[in-house]
């Protein structure tokens, strides 16, 4: 019986519902010293001096280290695979502690102490002398002449600018009779808000440094710690325990390099860094705020004649993942709604805000908001139903992208929209809500997205896997791909059990917690890649192990390996299906054979030179209270084509989480900064307005399972896609309910009040 497509319980579920699962903080040695970080209280400044006299006098304080003590070279932090091409390596623009303060919250010193209290008191007792400089918070303003220069190597603060030209936009728009639909769309700075803050601890053993960290990417972090400390990479061991969520924030080297370095400064004694929630918001990573300008030219038949997209991505103080996010966003447009004449430009710009990095969706929630808002405006301009407009213009079946090699093998978009529309009763509600008056108004909106699976061909895509046949006939499996809550380990166990012919996914023991000394090299959890890329190496390694098992079985059964198979953990003769030997018997015999003892293992790497389109849509039904300027989502449906599902219940749960994030992005979340000082204003969970379960309707997840032909298991991206299209669906539903197109997120009462007032729906009496 197939092990795939079954909603098996998570393999880590029991430990998680009993509280036994160990996260990094549950593993900190009791003698670890506390490292607490002094964050700059200026948005842009040079640290002239730090007086640590008072801090050092505090009992329990062991050492104070500052930006004047750290190695004098910069390092990159992005969780990207190493590139053999120096031109494609990540931007190295920060030091362990920085003299040039580039945002309010920058790391300028640490206090190492025996107790947390002493460390915190020590940080408070530091006296910093700043030379203040003007700062800039807005990406476009940062490009203006005379704007404060944030990094010497980047004139006008432009980290990178990329563009594309397809056909001839300028000529195409001269065609008479075109309808122009233009808009500015803007998304805010938001944060990942995994419930476990980032933290780590480090210690030295036999001259090497071990860092146990809440990270998504242990192998990549090892390289970055090596770079930051100037040590050979193999001097570093990274251990990733279970982690309390990541969502991309932990797809970056956060405080592992600093923690490792602090460890070396106290003779290799264990040290710990534990981010407070307030630090997580500001001094980890955030999602890029992006401003878009879109001009779409429509023919009288409602097809798109030409389109121009410009975007400015607010990078904040350090490059982190940098332009990759803006590039992904701007490059989504020509494939989403293909047209013959397009211009696209994307600028990623340094500002004096917290560094923006990877966050679930990697530029696509922003792009989807802008694109799908503009598309709804296009539909309105043509007097068309928004879904009908999309069906006319969206990526057709058979569409091929020559860069990624992706093909839209099925008509996934239209299938997803049709299913979603049926589930939410779109057509009837659209009609019902078309003529409303009164204070409470309802609307229904749709939005779509596409998403790449993995990062080929932009970066290396590789996956390694190791399988060991145990003496009881079970298999132990090590993957480089990390479990961060999504359920990866369970899906991997199902995939391995299927490929090996084991009786149950429970017969695969996944070594969950990666250790770079032991685990075969993998890149980690990002880019919605893991089920796809691990699929290749799991299948390949399973086939190698199976071959070894059957070859060994030949010496015991005298049957040809070609005539044997493994079914439900038993070696069978294919010709008549009869059972020859259980895997346990084989493993014991192989291990303890006095003539030919063998531990049956297999290990392999697979370099993936594919990518795959993942598709989906969101439908949102909202009720708007005009007087309260409040929009409430009363129903929401997401439909995804992520290929074949390995574990439908886990897939559905993954979609719920993404929808929740999209609702927060749409309605309430934003990190605010004081315009006068650049200080963050709401970097805590009370004022940030993360959704609670009172802010959600029931979340409805549905799937179109078109098997992906390039994948050995028919899968493609699902991790990030659910976060992409929810916010514009809400925006478009508010547009139907009120007639007001609001082009800036979040759609909270403050914004609705301004927009409704402007539209004359309410009056400030």
């Amino acid at each position, binding site marked *: 019986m197939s092990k795939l497509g079954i909603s098996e*319980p998570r393999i880590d579920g*029991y430990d998680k*519902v*009993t509280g036994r699962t160990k996260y990094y903080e*549950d593993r900190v040695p009791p003698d670890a010293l506390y490292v607490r970080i002094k964050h700059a209280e200026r948005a842009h400044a040079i640290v002239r001096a730090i007086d640590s006299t008072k801090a050092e006098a505090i009992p329990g304080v062991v050492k104070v280290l500052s930006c004047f003590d750290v190695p004098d070279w910069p390092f990159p932090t992005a969780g990207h695979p190493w590139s053999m091409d120096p031109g494609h390596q990540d931007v190295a623009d920060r030091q362990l502690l920085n003299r040039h303060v580039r945002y309010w919250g920058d790391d300028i010193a640490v206090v190492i102490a025996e107790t947390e209290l002493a460390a915190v008191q020590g940080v408070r007792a530091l006296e910093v002398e700043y030379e203040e400089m003007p700062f800039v918070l807005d990406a476009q303003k940062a490009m203006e002449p005379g704007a404060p220069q944030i990094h010497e190597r980047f004139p006008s603060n432009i980290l990178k600018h990329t563009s594309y030209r397809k056909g001839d936009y300028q000529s195409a728009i001269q065609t008479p009779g075109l309808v122009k639909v233009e808009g500015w769309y803007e998304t805010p700075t938001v944060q990942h808000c995994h419930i476990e803050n980032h933290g780590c601890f480090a210690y030295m053993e036999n001259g090497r440094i071990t860092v146990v960290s809440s990270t998504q990417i242990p192998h990549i972090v090892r390289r970055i710690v090596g770079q930051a400390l100037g040590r050979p990479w193999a001097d570093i061991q990274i251990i990733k325990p279970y982690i309390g*969520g990541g969502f991309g924030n932990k797809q970056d080297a956060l405080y592992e390099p600093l923690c490792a370095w602090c460890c070396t400064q106290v003779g290799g004694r264990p040290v710990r860094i534990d981010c407070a929630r307030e630090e997580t918001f500001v001094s980890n990573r955030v999602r890029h705020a992006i401003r878009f300008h879109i001009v779409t030219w429509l023919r009288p038949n409602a097809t798109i004649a030409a389109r121009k997209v410009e975007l400015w991505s607010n990078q904040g103080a350090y490059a982190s993942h940098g332009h990759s996010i803006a590039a992904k966003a701007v490059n989504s447009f020509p494939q989403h709604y293909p047209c013959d004449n397009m211009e696209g430009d994307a600028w990623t710009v340094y500002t004096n805000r917290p560094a923006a990095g990877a966050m679930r969706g990697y530029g696509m929630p922003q792009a989807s908001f802008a694109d799908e808002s503009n598309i709804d405006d296009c539909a309105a301009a043509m007097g068309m139903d928004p879904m009908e407009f999309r069906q006319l213009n969206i990526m057709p079946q058979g569409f091929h992208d020559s860069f990624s090699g992706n093909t839209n093998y099925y008509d996934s978009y239209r299938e997803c929209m049709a299913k979603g529309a049926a589930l939410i009763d779109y057509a009837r509600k659209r009609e019902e809500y078309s003529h409303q008056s009164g204070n409470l108004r309802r609307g229904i909106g749709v939005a779509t997205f596409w998403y790449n699976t993995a990062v080929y061909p932009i970066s290396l895509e590789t996956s390694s896997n190791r399988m060991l046949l145990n003496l009881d006939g079970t298999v132990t499996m090590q993957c480089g791909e990390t479990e961060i809550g999504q359920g990866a380990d369970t899906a991997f166990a199902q995939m391995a059990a299927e490929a090996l012919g084991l009786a149950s996914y429970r017969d695969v023991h996944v070594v969950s917690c990666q250790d770079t000394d032991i685990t075969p090299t993998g890149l980690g959890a990002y880019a919605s890649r893991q089920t796809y890329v691990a699929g290749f190496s799991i299948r390949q390694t399973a086939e190698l192990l199976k071959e070894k098992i059957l070859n060994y079985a030949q010496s015991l059964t005298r049957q040809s390996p070609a005539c044997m198979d493994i079914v439900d953990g038993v070696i069978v003769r294919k010709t008549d299906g009869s059972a020859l030997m259980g895997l346990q018997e084989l493993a014991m015999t192989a291990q303890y054979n006095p003539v030919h003892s063998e531990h049956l293992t297999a290990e392999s790497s697979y370099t993936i030179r594919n990518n795959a389109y993942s598709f989906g849509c969101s439908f949102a039904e909202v009720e708007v209270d005009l007087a309260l300027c409040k929009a409430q989502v009363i129903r929401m449906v997401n439909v995804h084509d992520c290929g074949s599902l390995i574990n439908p219940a886990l897939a559905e749960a993954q979609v719920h989480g993404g929808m*929740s994030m999209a609702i927060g992005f749409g309605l309430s979340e934003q990190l605010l900064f004081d315009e006068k000082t650049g200080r963050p204003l709401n970097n*805590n969970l009370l004022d940030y307005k993360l959704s*609670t379960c009172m802010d959600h309707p*029931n979340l409805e997840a549905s799937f179109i399972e078109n098997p992906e032909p390039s994948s050995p298991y028919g899968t493609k991206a699902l991790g990030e896609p659910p976060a992409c299209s929810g916010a514009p669906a809400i925006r478009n539903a508010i547009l139907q309910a009120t007639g007001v197109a609001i082009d800036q997120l979040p759609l909270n009462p403050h914004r609705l009040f301004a927009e409704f007032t402007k539209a004359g729906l309410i009056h400030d009496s």
Partner: protein
Amino acid sequence: MSQYKLVHCNINGRDVEKMVDVRASLTDMLRNDFRLLSVKKGCEVGECGACNVLIDGEAFNACIYLAVWAEGKHIRTLEGLTGPNGELSDIQQAFLDETAVQCGFCTPGFIMTAVEILETGKLYTDDELRKLLSGHLCRCTGYENILRAVKKTMYRRLGKQIDF
């Protein structure tokens, strides 16, 4: 006032006493002195609910409850819910069955609030359940399956049909 004080309380059915720093939170005491590591730290200022435990049957964020206030109290953590031979309670099993667990970091706190809800013996509406659970933040699940797990267990305990 001395910086340390002896606290007597009952934790998961066992009478204990411990000398604690008067400035320590109940989270500190439970994690550091009793190694009850299901008590998680997500904000330490009472915003996220990850450290939630039951004190005399009532849910509290242990991070903003002083350890010394535990004097004479009955405290229950997730560890106390699991049977002596590792048996799961109905609500723990429901979290598994409903796929209400992802990263697992908010799970202990949520389950303990669920226990408080279930022990009232009342039948709550969905809106009421949402409000009762709203002191907990979760970024993985969208709360959907958590709500489902609590609701199903509530119905089962009351011997009622579930209207899903």
